[in-house]
């Protein structure tokens, strides 16, 4: 078996540093998820309103965030604001801002989709049974919306975790950046370390995202 450079992991605190980097990536994505989900639910509800002004504004927001690559958004928020407004924000804060903006837009669109996918007949047959509009939402609409939403929003969470690998470009030392540092430091002693370390990073991402996907799949199967 060729030397894959796994021994580098055992040198010094290298493995602990990688785990620390993973924690940074997870911290950024989890904080952003916690911010995005309630804001996204609000945005999704606003997007179903018939008011033309709210429609146009939410549409513009959604399209801008979606069309722009996350990396450009990161540069814009991290470097752009420093030059233009003189804000000195940390790379991690800039990342959380960008991921929350993005997560809110995506979550909003998911919520909107779930809400409008409930057929009008569901509302009608509920009111024909004498349910008030509050009862209709509580017992009929919200349970169905959540069933449609949970698998989709869990997928969004794994996408956000994976996309945090971009934040090294604005100097945040997350798992991929730590991996690069370890490889650089051991270039002479273990020239093959790149393979072993990046493979470890791959496995770490996989271990972080896989259980989440499994939950999403299980829920999907249960609720169809």
């Amino acid at each position, binding site marked *: 078996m060729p030397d894959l450079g796994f021994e580098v992991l055992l040198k010094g605190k290298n493995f602990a540093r990688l785990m620390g980097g993973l924690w940074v990536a997870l911290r950024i994505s989890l904080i952003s998820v916690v911010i995005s989900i309630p804001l996204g639910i609000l945005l999704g509800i606003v997007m179903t309103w018939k008011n033309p002004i709210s429609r146009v504004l939410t549409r513009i927001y959604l399209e801008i965030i979606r069309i722009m690559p996350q990396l450009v958004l990161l540069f814009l928020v991290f470097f752009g604001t420093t030059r233009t407004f003189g804000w000195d924000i940390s790379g991690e804060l800039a990342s959380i801002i960008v991921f929350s903006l993005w997560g809110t837009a995506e979550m909003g669109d998911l919520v909107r989709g779930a809400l409008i996918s409930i*057929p009008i*007949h*569901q509302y*009608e*047959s*509920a*009111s*024909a*049974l*004498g*349910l*008030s509009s509050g*009862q209709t939402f509580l*017992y*009929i609409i919200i*349970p*169905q919306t959540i*069933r449609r939403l949970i698998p989709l929003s869990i997928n969004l969470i794994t996408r956000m975790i994976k996309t945090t690998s971009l934040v090294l470009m604005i100097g945040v030392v997350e798992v991929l950046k730590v991996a690069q540092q370890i490889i650089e430091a051991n270039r002479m002693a273990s020239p093959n370390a790149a393979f072993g370390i990046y493979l470890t990073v791959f496995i770490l991402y996989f271990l972080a995202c896989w259980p989440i996907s499994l939950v999403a799949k299980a829920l999907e199967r249960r*609720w*169809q």
Partner: protein
Amino acid sequence: MGRELLSIEHLTKRYGDLTVLEDLSLTVQEGQVIVIVGPSGCGKSTLLRCINALEPIQGGIIKLDGQEIDRDTKKLPELRQKIGMVFQSYDLFPHLTALDNITLAPIKVQKRKKAEVEAEALQLLERVGLKDRAGDYPRQLSGGQKQRVAIVRALCMHPEIMLFDEVTAALDPEMVREVLDVLLDLAKQGRTMLIVTHEMQFARAVADQVIFLDGGQIVEQAPPDQFFEHPKTQRAQKFLNTFTFETIKNHGGNDYENQA
């Protein structure tokens, strides 16, 4: 035939400039079964939807038991409990089992005891031949089974009048019968019903009165034998003719009939 249960006076319903129902008046006695027939788009379904206040109306008064049905009244949910409505597309709640579909409104709206409602629901399910499907979700049921559950769901609210909006129109032919049998059974029990349907033989069997609706107006109202044998108006004759076919091939005439 008992007292007057439902009265509709000078009902007018428009969608924008399009008049769907015009100055329509109708009374329904307790225990009466009225079948509404007519060409597509004549306003049959709209009439039922107006009675249940699912549609705003532009003129006239609809009264149930002397109480006006008005979309703005606070009593609307209370009035709607007295009106059971079954739709063409069943519209069961997909996240609830058949039993929970039936018991939700009696428990949450009428605040009845869960045990009592479930016992009644199971009894009604047994009557329509679905007791063993009580725990199934709608997606596990066939169209005819779903529609029977939907009928039981309406029945379990103890409505005074039931509205059936083309309840067999979305079903495969072999499932139509099982649903119509349930309706016939309800008619035998003396329930007050308004039925919109395209099943003419069924209409004839179940109705006390047939109403022919065309162009948003009642063109003809008569007992079924009279309506189907001797329709008075030309429009009704023309409509009924669309349900009969002339034989165009000779199968051997009487011989064939004798064999059958």
